[in-house]
């Protein structure tokens, strides 16, 4: 049992949206690093180390690409490293590219974390209260996808074993796939008619459908939601007011590093690490309870 399973999906969504918005509207490398770190630690806490390991190579590729390509488009900056004709590659624009890369990695890590905590069921539950029909349509579609996939494979094998189309010839291969695809469409129409019957057999006309969900906003969710909203609004205010500004060009320097900007960094850190701390707390509590048994 992990902590996020007890958090209401709406609150989870709010939390992630706030973090993503904050990351996307800041150019401060310190904040970018913090958000990346928060996202990666959270992924690890969720037990997604395998996903992380697989993604790391993409992270590195993105970082390298953004760092190296930024100087091709932006030639600002004072510290010139190499000069080829009219092109000059500056240290500042390399760093700007690296910052951008880190920010993209942070967004990726958070999105991976979000998709692993938000099951399709949780998405649907977000619609259920207000839009029960949309929610029903989504669940029916979700049921269809794996069925269609399986059927597609079955049609391919059955038709292949008839030996009518050669796999070697490109033209025949396309024709083969097209025919199988049409068979799939026909089957799904047939299937849809059956699903409609099954829905009809269990429904009442003239009665308003209720929509049942197993998620309910609790006190804990409310506290978490209020905390996230307050942190986000404060940080956004500070961001707009320029407390977090950072200048790359013409020379890298931190604008007026003072108490205000320090506060903004702390607030951002808290925001980016809350999901991780929640999981960490859960883990430690579990260890503690176990040790008492």
């Amino acid at each position, binding site marked *: 049992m992990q902590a996020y399973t007890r958090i209401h999906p709406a609150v989870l969504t709010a939390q992630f949206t706030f973090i993503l918005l904050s990351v996307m509207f800041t150019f401060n490398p310190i904040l970018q690093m913090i958000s990346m770190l928060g996202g990666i630690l959270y992924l690890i806490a969720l037990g997604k180390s395998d996903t992380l390991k697989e993604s790391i190579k993409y992270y590195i590729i993105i970082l390298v690409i953004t760092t190296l390509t930024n100087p091709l488009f932006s030639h600002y900056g004072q510290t010139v490293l190499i000069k080829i004709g009219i092109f000059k590659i500056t240290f500042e624009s390399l760093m700007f590219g690296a910052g951008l890369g880190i920010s993209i990695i942070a967004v990726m890590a958070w999105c991976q974390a979000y998709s692993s905590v938000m099951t399709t069921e949780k998405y649907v539950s977000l619609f259920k209260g207000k839009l029960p029909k949309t929610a029903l349509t989504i*669940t029916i579609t979700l049921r269809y996808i794996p069925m269609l996939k399986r059927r597609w494979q079955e049609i391919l094998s*059955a038709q292949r074993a008839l030996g009518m189309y050669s796999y070697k010839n490109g033209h025949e291969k396309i024709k083969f796939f097209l025919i199988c695809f049409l068979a799939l469409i026909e089957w799904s129409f047939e299937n849809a008619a059956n699903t409609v019957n099954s*829905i009809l057999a269990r429904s009442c006309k003239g009665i308003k459908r209720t929509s049942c969900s197993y998620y309910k906003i609790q006190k804990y969710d409310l506290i978490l939601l209020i905390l996230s909203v307050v942190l986000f609004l404060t940080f956004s205010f500070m961001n707009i007011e320029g407390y977090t500004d950072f200048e790359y060009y013409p020379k890298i320097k931190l604008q007026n590093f003072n108490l205000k900007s320090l506060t903004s960094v702390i607030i951002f850190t808290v925001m980016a690490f809350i999901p991780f701390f929640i999981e960490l707390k859960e883990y430690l509590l579990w260890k503690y309870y176990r040790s008492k048994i």
Partner: protein
Amino acid sequence: MEILQVKNLGFTYTGNRTKALDDINFSISAGSINLLIGATGSGKSTLLRLLKRQLSPAGQTQGEIIFDTVDILNKSSDLLSLKIGYVGQDPELQIVTDKVWSELVFGLESMGLSRDEIHRRAAEFASYFGIQEWFDKSTDELSGGQKQILNLASVMITEPELLILDEPTSQLDPISSSDFMSTLIKLNMELGTTILIAEHRTEDLFPISDKLLIVDRGKLIFCDTPRCACTMMKGHDIYDNFPTAAKIWSMLDIECECPISVKDGITFLEKHYYPDQSEEENTADKSILPAVIQASNIWFRYSKNDKDILKGANLTVRQGEIFSILGGNGSGKTTILNLVSGLKRPYKGKIKINGKNILEYKNNSLYKGVISYLPQDPKLLFIKDTVADDLYELAGSLDIERQQQDKLIDETIQLFEIKDLINIHPYDLSGGERQKCALAKLMLTDPAVFLLDEPTKGMDAAYKKKLGIILKLFKEKGKTVLITTHDIEFAAAYSDKCALLFNGIFACVGKPSQFFSGNHFYTTASARISRRIFNNTILFEDVVKRCKKAKCK
């Protein structure tokens, strides 16, 4: 008290002149179990669907259907019709949503119940039906048996008084179907739910049914207790669908009450016959025909991290044999067929077809005259608008001249007796008809080996007989047939060899008489009835023959 009364019910499908149902009269008393039988196409499903108004087919209806003092044909509210629950044949097609729990509460949501009420009932029903273990799963992960239990539970959750089931276990394996049946019986015993069920497998249902309804060509020809039917219906075609004990009894002229369960059958034989364990003379000819399929030391798994499905399986099928592979769900029966048909490859081991390694068949040459594969769902083989179009398409891909193609198709149509079916859309045929057309299609390529995956699934006794005849015909033509099946009775009646696939290998291989008489549970009803008295009697015909020879008490 009568819960349902059907009076003078008649029905004609739109665009059809002949009546699908004619002058049906019967009543069902509350809390009873009622079994409906009849050949495919006799109007069973039409009758059941007329009783469930939302599913009624389009057409002209006459007569009255009175449920709970209301004539539901004329005056029907949806709330009332939720009092009639309906579970159909295919477990897959009735599931609507992606999660087990949301499927379960679907009916309650449409009744507009409050959230707390829904939670309470869902909890109660999930525990009653043993669903709590997979409550949070996706419906797609469930086995066929689990899906059907879920369908039953999500119909029962709206608390219907009458439950209508249309061949609910026809797509299930024997273990799942007996699980399903015991749940059904429990519902009847503990909640007093009235049950009206149409089924081909009557072995379990006959002894517990209060009433038996027999439909034949749109008419209700019998409506009384099952035991009464055993005497009354003697000599009628429908007797093929009766339990084995009754079939044995009907062939012997012994004055006593008809046995309708395996237990009754055992007592009946012990009471009337002296044991006769004499060895039958071995008539098997010793000549060994060449092996057509030879698979040695086959290892297979679907993906790197999966468990092995086959663990060094060996299989030899000889020319002209009808070879049945039996085994539980997920034991790898279909996998074997996929491997032998070259659709999948083992990661270890060798498969030889006609003495040639399967990998050496290039460019579809394996599928032209060597192997043909009938998948579990014959619909997969049809992609055109009529059966004839499908046949012509396949014939066109063969390397023969136009005239020969026509001749070949005409011969095939005659051989399989499908003349009336070829201008119909393949999806509009009944299961049995569709399968016959599928077999005809496969026959066009004149293959040496037929691979049939669960060919008797959902078929009634009459069709199984026809399929058996087709298989014998294949055998006469020197074809080899490899079948996977759950259907013990069918395997016993028609195969030359049976093999049990268990834990990735073939646990035992043998002739049906040795194979089934050695098993205790995994055997035919006839063998279970007669094992204490006779040896090697696995078909009811065998038992009857031995009874006639044996000394009467």
